[in-house]
C-alpha cells in the first residue's frame, strides 16, 4: 500500500494558522485539540563569534502534525486534498505519496516530510 504524507517547505511558513483552523473546522474538533499545530521558533538574534547579538534573526514557524491527523481521509476519498494543504496561504505544503515527496525533499533545503501513523 502506498503511504501518503505531507511535505512542508517551512522556509515559507509565515505563521498564519490557517492549517490549524482548517483542521479544526474540517473535523469539528473541540477546543484545545489539534491535528496540526503551528509551533513558533523565534525570533531570536543570531550571535556573532564574540557572543554579541547581530541583526540577523531566526524566525521560523513549523506546522507540527499530531497523531490525530488522518490526512483528511474523508476528503481524500472524494479526491480532495487535506484541508490544511488546500487552504495554506503560503502554499508551502504538498500532499502526496511518500516516495514522490522524498524526491521533492531532495530538491531544496528547509523542508520536512510528515508521515502520520494512519498512513
Amino acid at each position, binding site marked *: 500500500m502506498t503511504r501518503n504524507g505531507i511535505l512542508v517547505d517551512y522556509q*515559507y511558513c*509565515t*505563521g*498564519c*494558522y*490557517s492549517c*490549524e*483552523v*482548517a483542521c*479544526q*473546522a474540517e473535523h469539528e474538533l473541540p*477546543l*484545545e485539540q489539534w491535528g496540526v499545530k503551528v509551533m513558533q521558533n*523565534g*525570533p*531570536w*538574534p543570531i550571535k556573532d563569534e564574540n557572543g554579541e547579538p547581530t*541583526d540577523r*534573526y*531566526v*524566525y521560523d*514557524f513549523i506546522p507540527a502534525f499530531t497523531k490525530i491527523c488522518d490526512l483528511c481521509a474523508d476528503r481524500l476519498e*472524494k479526491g480532495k486534498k487535506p*484541508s490544511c494543504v*488546500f*487552504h*495554506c*496561504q*503560503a*502554499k*508551502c505544503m504538498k500532499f502526496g505519496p511518500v516516495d514522490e515527496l522524498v524526491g521533492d525533499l531532495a530538491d531544496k533545503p528547509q523542508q520536512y516530510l510528515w508521515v502520520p501513523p494512519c498512513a
Partner: protein
Amino acid sequence: MGEQVLESKNRDDIGTSKEENQFNFGAGERPEMQDWKHPGEWQYMEDGMLVTRTSVWSAPGCHEGCGVLVYSDPETGRFIKVEGDPDDPYNRGALCPRCLAFKQVEFHPDRILHPMKRIGERGENKWQRITWDEALETCYKEFRRISMTYGGESIHCLRGTARDNQWQVGRLANTFNSPNEYGFLSGTACYLPRLSLMIMTYGGMLIADFSQFSALRYNDPEWQCPECTIVWGCNPTISNPDFFMGHWVTDAMKLGCKLISVEPRVTWLAAHADIHLMLRPGTDTALALGMAKVIIDEDLYDHDFVERWCYGFDEFAARAQELSLDEVEKMTWVPKDKIIAAARLFANSHPANIVWGLAVDMQSQGTPCAAAIAALWTITGNLDIPGGMCYTAAPMGVDQPSAGAWGYYDLLSEEQQKKRVGWHEYPMYRYGLTQAMPDMCLEEMEQGKVKGVWIQTSNGIACMSCETERWYKAMKKPEFIAACDIFMTPTIQSSADIVMPVQTWAEKHSVRAHYYFLSAITGGCATEGEAKSDCEINRELAQYFDHDEEFKKAIGRPLDQNAWPWQTEDEVYDEIVKPSGFTFHELMENGPVYQKYIYKKYEKGLMRPDGKPGFNTPTGRVELYSTLFQNFGYDPLPYIEEPGIGPVSTPDLYEKYPLIMITGARTTSFFHSEHRQIPYLRQLTPDPWVQINPKTAAEHNINEGDWVWIENHRGRCRQRARVTYEVGEHEIAAQHGWWFPEQDGAEPNLYGFRQSNINQLLANKPGATGFGADLKCTLCKIYRCSEEDL
C-alpha cells in the same frame, strides 16, 4: 499633456467635482474583458450539498474579497461549511482562519436575529423584540424629524473600515440629506492619507503589482515578477491589508524577488528580508527622503521618466539632497550604510515595487510621508509597468469604492455637499473618499450639534476611537441612534435606541468590486433569524423618504428624484454593475470577471477625462511638487517633522514614559474588533497581548503572560506580556480593538471595553492636512498589574 489653470482659482473652488476625485481609472466605461472564464459552475450539487460560488466581504469584515465555495443543506438551506475556491485567481483556494472558522460566526448563539428596541436607559442592556416595520418606521420618523428640524448635516452615518457597505452608508446619509459619513478614526489614519495624496499628485490610486490584475496571475506573459519589493510599515502576511493578499509577497520571494523590510519590529517578513531597516516609529519620511537622496546623488534614477512625466523633480531633488545621511541615521536609528544599501538595491532592481501599510498613515505627517515614499517608485521608473506600481481599476468599469460618493454628487445640492464636516477646513478631504473629518465630527458631537446617528457595522468606541472616553460620552448626546450589526457591541449597547440584524456574507447578495475584478457576492445559505443585508435595510428605509413629498420639498430634492429607485436589492446591484454590461444575475454566473489590464496608461491617453496623454493632475504630470498643496497652503514637497509625542519632540514626557508605543499590529485571528466571541479564533489569541523585548521585560520584572499596565499621560489599560525579540528594547507593541463579549454587557462595564483599550492612551490629533495621526508612534511606560488589579 492637458493642464488646468489653478492660480486663478479660489481654494474652495478646487476639488469640487467628481472628475477631479478620480479613485480608479476607467469608471463608468465597459473595458475589454480579459479572455478568461471561471471554469466552474456558479452553483452545483456535491455529495448531497448545494455549493454556491461567492466572494467574502462583510459581515464580518474582511479586506480581501476572496473567492469561496459555500456548502449548504439543499433542504433547509442552512450553512454547512466554506472552502476556498481553487479556481479563483485572487486567493487560489487559500483562506485565512477567519473564513475557516466562519461556521462559528454563522451559528453563534449571540447573533442578533431580530430587530430590537431599547426599553431601559441607554446602556442598561434591556431590549425588546420588534418587527422590521416598527424598526424602519421609527428610524424614518426620527431621521425625518431631525433632518427637517436641524438640517440633514446633523445626522452622522458611521461605518467601520467598510467594504461593500461603504457606498450603502454614504448613500443612506445622502438620502437623509446628510453629507456626513465616516468612521471614528482620528485623521482618517487608515489609507486615506496615502489615497488622497495619490489622487491629488498621481491622478489615481497605485498598488504593487503582483499579477493580481490578471486572472492568469503568475502565468500571464505580460507580467514580470518584481526584482525587489519594499514592504514598508506593513505586515501583509498577517494583515492581508486592503485588497492585497500578503502571501503574494512570499510567492514572489519564491520566484526570486528580493525583499527590503522597513519595519520597527522583527516580523517574520523582516527576519526573512535581504535588508531590514529597523526604524524608529514615525520617522518614515526621513528614511524615504534619505533613500531618495542616495538614488539622486548616485544618479540611479530614471532620467527619461522624470523628464517626460514628472513635475517638480528639481525641487524634490533639492529637498532630498539637502539632508545629510548622518542626520537621517540619527533621526531614524537606521545605520547609514543600510540606508544606502537599500536605496541601491531598490533603484537597481527593475521592476520594483512597494507594499506599504498603515504605519504611513498612522503618524501625524502621514501625507508628506506618503509623498516621500511614492517618489521612490516614481523616480526609479516603476510607475504603471508590469511588476511595478500600477493604477487600480474600476473593475469592468464599476466604480464602487468612490461610489462612497455615489450619492454625494448626485443627491446633495452643492450647498449641502459643502456642509460635509471638514469640507472647507481640510480641502484634501475632497479627494479620495468623500467622507467627513472625524476629529471635527467629534467636536460637533460634543457640542450637541449631532442629533441623529446611523451606525452600520461599526464598533467605534471599542476600536477606532482615540481618547475613547470622549467619543463614548459624545455618543450619549444625539437624540436618536440606530444601529445594524451581526452582534451586540459596546458601541451599540451604550448608545443605540434601535438595533437591526445584518446578514453575514454567506447569506447575503451584494457586489465585490475593487481594484482588479468584479464579482457577485451570492447568498449561498439560508438567513438566520430575520437578518437582512446592509443594502436591503438601507433600501427599505430609503423608500419611506422617497415617498415623502413633504420631506423632498423641505430639503429641496426634486419630487421626481428618488434616492433608491429600485424595487429589490438585486435591482440596486443591477444598477451598480451596469457599466460592466452584466446584470447582477449574469455576474453571479460569470464572476469573477477581469478586464484586460493596460499598463502605461499615461502614454495612451487613458488616465484623463479629456483623453490626452499624461496624468489626471493639474499639470498633467506626476507632481513631485504638488500644485494643489501649494494652492491649499501646504508645503508642496515632502517634509520631515517629528511625531507629536516622542523622544525628540517631548523630552519631558519621554523621561516619564520611556518606551515608544506601537499599536494596531494584527493577528490572523481577528478583524479589528470583530471575532472575539468565535471560539476557534479566540483560542489562537485568548487575551490582548503587548509585545515586550526580553531585556525591557527583565528591567521591569515582567514575565511572559503577566498582565501589565500600559500607561501614559492620557490613560492606561492592561494587556498580557508577550516577551519577545519581535520588538526592540525601546518599543512595545500593543494590540487594538479588544472588548470581551463574554463579560457583562450593561453599563458601566459594557463588555469590559475599557480594560484593554489601547486607544485610551492616544489622542485625536490629526496632521496639518487633516489626514494622519500619531497612532503607531506615541510614548508610554509599563508595569506589572498587582493582584488586586485583576
